């Protein structure tokens, strides 16, 4: 999908208008951002905003994340285990240190 994020009031208003006018191309509206279908028309809408507002419009191409393909097992298991932790107040760093889960700082340094 195409993620369009606006960074000025004028760009945000034009995005809103575009979303009103082209519901069929809008997958999701998120306040000052929107997800468009990845079609030529979705690209057209995104690009016309960028043409009008330049850097005030950020356009990203998004992909669903398949964690089984892209994320190491240790990270996946840590996420499951942390979601299932006993005490809601335990911060992850502490949780990871006790068990054999990856250290948050180390994870931050490793790109997917």
């Amino acid at each position: 999908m195409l993620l369009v994020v606006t960074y000025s009031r004028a760009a945000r208003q034009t995005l809103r208008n575009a979303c009103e006018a082209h519901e069929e191309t809008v997958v999701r509206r998120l306040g000052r951002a929107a997800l468009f279908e990845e079609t030529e028309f979705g690209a057209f809408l995104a690009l016309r905003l960028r043409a009008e507002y330049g850097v005030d419009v950020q356009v990203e191409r998004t992909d669903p994340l398949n964690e089984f393909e892209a994320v190491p097992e240790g990270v996946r298991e840590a996420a499951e285990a942390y979601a299932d932790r006993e005490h809601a107040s335990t911060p992850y760093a502490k949780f990871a240190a006790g068990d054999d889960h990856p250290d948050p700082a180390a994870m931050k340094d490793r790109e997917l």
Partner: protein
Amino acid sequence: MRVDDGETVREGRVVDARALALSRADAVAAIRGDGAAVAVACPEPGAAHERVGEVYPELSVSIRGALAAAARSRGHTAPQDDRIAEIESELAALTVPDVSTRPARADVADRADAVERLDERVAELRGRVQALRERDAETDAVETELAAAMRALTEARTDLIAARENHDAATETARAARDARERRMVLEDRLANRRRAAREALADTIADEYRDAVAAAPWATPADPFEVDDVTAVLAAARVADLRAPVVLSCDRFDGPAMAADWLDAEVLRL
């Protein structure tokens, strides 16, 4: 006031310029000091003149906005004023870097095209060398061409890698620069909210006087002063405002411009 259109000079608290070929736009511009078509000598227009200093049948107005301007002209302030000034100066001080990744994006696409083109060229030359060999023909010339194409391909690939790195770096910079844009939008939203609240607060300070002004109009008006027609609303707001500069009037609500000036308690330039 003193109105001089180059031929006639008219002076007084009330000037009836209906006989002159004077446009409303020129008259208003002259009063506000940014027109040359006609000279109007008068006191400097205050805060409300822009909202209520020009009255004509087709005008449309936000009543609360006009009342807020009238309140300002009378020296009223809003509780939000300090915060508004703070936000305005914060906005003025904010530097928003303008980082476009467009050249980097276009460069990546161009380099990728070049690689693809050279890739095809190399494949084609390889095919020709192969074909010549199968016929035991001379291959030197084509092989020289192939070697040159392969060198060019290697170079183009290096360029593409450099362009991609450059694009990644530009994208990172643009993301960081958007923090400032984000901040600007937050401040602008906040400013708009505060200004709206200030407008409401200011309008409230003179709402009663406005109600009285509407009731005092020498024509029929509805009981709710916020349901009146736009011309009535502007005239009533103008009556409440401290206008100093003349009201440019081109409507027939009063029995003559002198009556209008009395009712508005302001100078009147009748067009």
